């Protein structure tokens, strides 16, 4: 009976506080703008601006061999969607083009190409790539190999003998058969959007209240620390969820990213992630109390790790072990992993279970830390 009474009274206090908080957010338009405009801007920037898919790479084709075989091969490069070839007479000219970065690669067919093919010898085709952008260079080499394989298969189909390679690779890319990098980037981006809302926005706005002294006024009311936390976090939780909905919707509609898992599972995992982010944001604001420090801290422990140590763009398994060890402490790592799996693979519980467990643990720890920090302020 007594506990029920306490609970009822707590609920009443909370209702009043929540009303005040939502009024505050509604009247300060900048938070809503940040929560709704940021996802849209980020998605468009990343969706259009960041692409790892190589297409129409400018290449120089040098045919020292004037035979029809060599011409036929050059035609193959022209037909490929990956290359945009220009015919160059001499290798020296092509080198100049590569130096000036007018082309990204040179395909060089030596003068004895047809002769070697006719005499049943190995006919080399030289491909020189600009290695400055190593990632693109890898992809260009792979595509060039693909063009050669296609050409020899077509020759074989026409009855012209080219020895097929002894071992041929049949490649299958699961979960993303077109190897479309937007399908890989957009799910990870949701984590970045939610980090910005959950950590940066929350830390900034609450630190501003500390700075202006309005937090002291709230602390002087009969509200308990736990109630203040709920009242402060709930509005930002809703803003974060709106950002999530917006990101997922735009990703589906504008960029055509598949969504193979179930929305309810995604909702569960994003709730856990958002709670962890909000806990971190509240902790930063309570510890820093000044907007400048809160902004720096949330960029350093929130934004940068969510970008670089989460697997959103860069693959973590290839990094040295100390980096991997740090990444395990980053909530975004688990959410990016869950996001990739739910968008592209489906409800794979052997992946999602661990992610959910880690996120729940982090959310719990961060919120308890933030609450104790807030409690100290109350007494102090």
């Amino acid at each position, binding site marked *: 009976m007594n506990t029920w009474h306490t609970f009822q009274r707590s609920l009443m206090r909370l209702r009043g506080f929540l009303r005040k908080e939502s009024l505050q957010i509604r009247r300060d338009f900048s938070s809503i703008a940040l929560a709704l405009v940021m996802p849209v801007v980020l998605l468009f920037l990343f969706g259009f601006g960041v692409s790892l898919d190589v297409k129409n790479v400018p290449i120089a084709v040098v045919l020292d061999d004037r035979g029809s075989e060599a011409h036929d091969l050059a035609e193959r490069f022209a037909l490929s969607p990956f290359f945009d070839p220009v015919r160059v007479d001499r290798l020296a000219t092509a080198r100049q083009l590569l130096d000036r970065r007018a082309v990204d690669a040179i395909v060089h067919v030596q003068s004895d190409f047809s002769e070697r093919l006719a005499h049943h010898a190995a006919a080399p085709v030289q491909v020189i790539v600009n290695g400055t952008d190593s990632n693109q260079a890898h992809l260009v080499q792979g595509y060039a190999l693909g063009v050669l394989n296609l050409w020899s298969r077509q020759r074989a189909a026409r009855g012209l003998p080219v*020895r097929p390679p002894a071992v041929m690779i049949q490649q299958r890319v699961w979960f993303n058969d077109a190897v479309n990098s937007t399908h890989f980037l957009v799910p990870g981006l949701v984590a970045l959007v939610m980090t910005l809302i959950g950590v940066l926005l929350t830390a900034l706005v609450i630190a501003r209240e500390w700075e202006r002294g309005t937090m002291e006024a709230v602390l002087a009311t009969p509200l308990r620390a736990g109630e203040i936390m709920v009242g402060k976090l709930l509005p930002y939780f809703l803003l974060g969820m709106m950002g999530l909905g917006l990101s997922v919707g735009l990703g589906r509609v504008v960029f055509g990213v598949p969504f193979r898992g179930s929305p309810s599972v995604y909702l569960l995992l994003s709730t856990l992630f958002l709670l962890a982010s909000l806990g971190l944001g509240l902790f930063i604001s309570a510890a820093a109390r000044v907007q400048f420090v809160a902004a720096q801290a949330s960029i350093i422990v929130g934004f940068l790790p969510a970008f670089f140590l989460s697997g959103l763009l860069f693959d973590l398994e290839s990094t040295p072990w100390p980096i991997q060890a740090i990444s395990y402490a980053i909530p975004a790592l688990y959410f990016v992993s869950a996001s990739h799996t739910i968008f592209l693979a489906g409800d794979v519980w052997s992946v999602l279970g661990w992610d959910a467990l880690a996120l729940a643990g982090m959310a719990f720890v961060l919120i308890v830390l933030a609450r104790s920090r807030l409690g100290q302020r109350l007494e102090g």
Partner: protein
Amino acid sequence: MAPTLVRVGTLVIKEFLAILKDPKSRIVVIGPPIIQFFVFGYAATFDLNNVRYAVLDEDRSAESRELLARFQGSPTFRLVGGLDSSSQVGDLMDRQGARLVLHIPPTFSRDLHAGQSAQVQVIVDGRNSNVASVALGYASAIVAQYNAEHGGNFAGRAPAAAEPSLQLVSRAWFNANLQSRWFIISALGGLIAMIVVLLLSSLSVSREREFGTFDQLLVAPFRSGEILVAKALPPMVCGMFDALLLAAAAVLWFGVPFRGSLLALVVALSVFICCVVGVGLFISSLSATMQQSLLGSFIFIMPNVILSGFTTPIANMPRWLQWGTLINPLRYIVTACREVFLQGGTLSTIWPQLWPMALIAAATLASANWLFRHRTA
């Protein structure tokens, strides 16, 4: 002229002191460069190591083992286990137990000896599309090498000389081992210079506004042009210092080659820093508080970094966005830094990057000057 110089000189000293005495500004000069150096140096990599793969060898012949041994010997791949039947593949891939599965069908050695092409199925996890395509490239290279060395040695297959074959000979210039670390770190100086210069210059006016000292500065006997120059110089010096420090660290710590001329690097960075300081002072003149300056800088930095070609090529963007990147100064300095470091660029070869930056610098400095006069007059 001389009194102007003296006045600007004293103001510059004052601004330097303001930066170095204020702990917050000190953090801006020291913090981001160190953090970014390590984050970009170690975490921002497109290289592949230790790609976890599993093997489903249904042939279990000497030939299949020979091919598999090549994968085991490669530093790119790390074997995590063998599978017994193809029904296990789905579960393993789903739970990311392996990112690549090599499936050798039972007819592998028979096909080889019958003179037909033997198939090997390579299944990769496409959740990270880039890892998928690069890993496929490595797998193809390993198989191509196997073919080149063993292609003609199987009974039933025509000897190597009897039928022509095609060979791809690949070479990479400027970065022979294709290390993405060189690609990222060589351009880092430009990025760091931008962040440091932008933060310091955007805070310079708004800090004084917030502390109320800006009015004192305005009533002091300085012309607004002199104040502007004095506000611009210290961030520029700090930015240049950080950029050159990181250039040295890139060479000494990460072993990135420096093949071009130092003069070209310094000139390119100077022009670039002029572009950025104009933007920073523009933001600072607009903002009433340091908070607004910080948010303004953040809003400027994000799209500029993404649309600069720093991590992903500009050529992959849609055409209209590529046109948009032409007004992004970071685009030019990133290209210029890479050219100087890796391709041996000199002043004449980086000229195509220099003049657009000079135009942008003229535009940003002029508008900062205009706004500064209007907001302070």
